[in-house]
């Protein structure tokens, strides 16, 4: 019997826990050539900014062991372009849109949330806290619980009541739980983790940093253990808050790992650059992993790793 992948997060009903991660699915059109965007849980958009952005100079990406270092700089058409072209397209294909928003001040996040709430068809908002805070000399919001909370409060306050707001956290903090708690206290309906980790490589030919932006964000399977640890810690501290786990998900088993650690949804990011059909494949593999373990519903397995060791074994005789 096939396992039931349907999942309820807050009041959202999604057909699958597998999403695409922010900034890794293009406008959705590129992904749709290889994956049925209506059948995955949702498409998380590139971070939408108020004005169009040209992004950073090239080179923007470089390959690192089991990862990519990237510094794209949030290139995008701006909110107007997104509302005119990209969002209607996603809806026309039957995709659910998790809209990632980015800005330089709490006010910008508030304006984005308010204008996106006026548009039909936004399933959820994801607040990208990895952006530099203009009032704190370019320090990302995610590094400071107070700044992160202020941004989340602005977005939650302006967004329509029935659109859940997820805050996307950075792993580059001493205590991710304190940032998570600040975001939840500020009204976040859920948390996404993790954003990329800062890193750098030097080009041996030019003898200079390989990226035009000098440092970049490390993503891909290389950061997966860090992401699992973050999901675990936040789940321990905030067991009732829905989490979206992301960071190097490459196979159904990786997705399962995130679910066991406590994530309700799993987003596929950098691996899409390697395998543009990864979302569908991971969804299929996840179902196989569940069936192999005798699990009927994906919701039964969320956070299972937090249960005592003997407990799961008593109730189920797992094949693997």
């Amino acid at each position, binding site marked *: 019997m096939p396992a039931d992948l349907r999942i309820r997060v807050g009041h959202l009903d999604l057909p699958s826990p597998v999403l695409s991660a922010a900034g*890794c*699915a*293009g406008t959705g*059109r*590129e*992904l749709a*050539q*290889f994956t049925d965007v209506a059948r995955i849980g949702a498409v998380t958009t590139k971070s939408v900014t108020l*004005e*169009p*952005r*040209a*992004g*950073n*100079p*090239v*080179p*923007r*990406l470089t*390959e690192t*062991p*089991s*990862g*990519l270092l*990237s510094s*794209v700089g949030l*290139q*995008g058409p*701006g909110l107007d372009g997104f509302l005119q072209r990209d969002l209607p397209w996603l809806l026309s294909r039957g995709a659910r849109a998790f809209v990632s928003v980015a800005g330089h001040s709490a006010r910008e996040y508030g304006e984005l949330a308010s204008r996106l709430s006026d548009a039909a068809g936004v399933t959820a908002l994801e607040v990208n806290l990895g952006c530099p805070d203009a009032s704190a000399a370019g320090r990302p919001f995610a590094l400071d619980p107070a700044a992160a909370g202020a941004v989340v409060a602005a977005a939650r306050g302006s967004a329509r009541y029935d659109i859940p707001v997820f805050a996307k956290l950075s792993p580059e903090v001493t205590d991710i739980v304190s940032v998570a708690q600040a975001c939840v206290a500020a009204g976040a309906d859920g948390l996404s983790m993790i954003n990329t980790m800062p890193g750098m490589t030097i080009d041996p030919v030019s003898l200079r940093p390989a990226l*035009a932006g000098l440092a970049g964000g490390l993503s*891909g*399977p290389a950061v997966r253990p860090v992401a699992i640890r973050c999901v675990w810690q936040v789940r321990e501290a905030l067991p009732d808050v829905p989490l979206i786990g992301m960071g190097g998900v490459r196979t159904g088993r990786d997705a399962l790992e995130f679910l066991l650690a406590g994530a309700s949804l799993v987003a596929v990011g*950098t*691996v*899409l*650059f*390697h*395998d*543009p*059909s990864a979302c569908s494949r991971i969804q299929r593999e996840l179902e196989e992993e569940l069936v192999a373990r005798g699990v009927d519903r994906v919701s039964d397995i969320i956070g299972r790793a937090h249960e005592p060791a003997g407990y799961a074994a008593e109730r189920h005789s797992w094949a693997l």
Partner: protein
Amino acid sequence: MAPVQVRGTVLTVRRVDAFVAMTVVAPAIATRFRPGQFVAIAVGGPTSSMLARRVLSVHDVRPDHGGTVEFVFPPREPGTQWLADCRSRDVLDIVGPLGRPFPVPKDPVSCLLVGVGDGSAPLFALAARLAERGSATDFLLGAESADRVFGALTARRTGRSAAIATADGSLGSRGSVVDLLPTVMQQARTDVIYASAPVPVLRSVCALAARYSLPVQALVSEPVMTCGTGLCAGCVLPVVGTDGVTRMVRACVDGPVFRGDRVRWDDVGTIPFDALGAPGWKPRAAAGPAAPSGSPEGRSHAS
């Protein structure tokens, strides 16, 4: 036609001077292919630590085995070395055909095909297509040395003329293709130039062509593409749109073939200050009176 992701079986791998030519059975890609398009290949197997796809121009497609695709690459880094070490019957994860192909003139004209290094690989399928339409093709190939000139023999055999330039003079004349370009253009009475070369060469070719008011279709291989499918936005370059506004467009989706006079060659690798969404860019200014501010840069390579 939309690209497909297939598992293709390697048919042959052979060394061609400094390059490796690989033929893969991929009927779905072969039937969709048009000259100028490329494929993106996953390297290192399913658990590879190399996440970027290797993006390679398609050299040729043939109908045997249902449809085969051939591409040419120098085994320079671990990813392409892994690819070069594949043997026949190995299976590769290939996405293609990707990108905008070379536009082909409706009426027979005199076409000059300029290629540097393995950049000349996509020109031979184009030459065949141009020949079908009755156009004459002249080749101008170049590289640092003789073993890095790809397809000199084919160019001599199939082209109306073939000129070759190498930096060390080991094949053809000493120098660069840019040095030979004015002579070749005049002798061949060129109407259209197709070029596939590194950016500095494309810039010079477009500047020269603009002086003779010749259209250029340029296939760019820089910036390096990471995914090839448009997802990562890593391969952007500044291109002037029909509305006069410069945009950072992805070479993999809006290219790799661009009209030579649309690309701001001097600004490749940067974000020009007047590009849409550049730091300090103002939405109101770009809508109206600021549009002409893009044209001085646009004209600079023509002067």
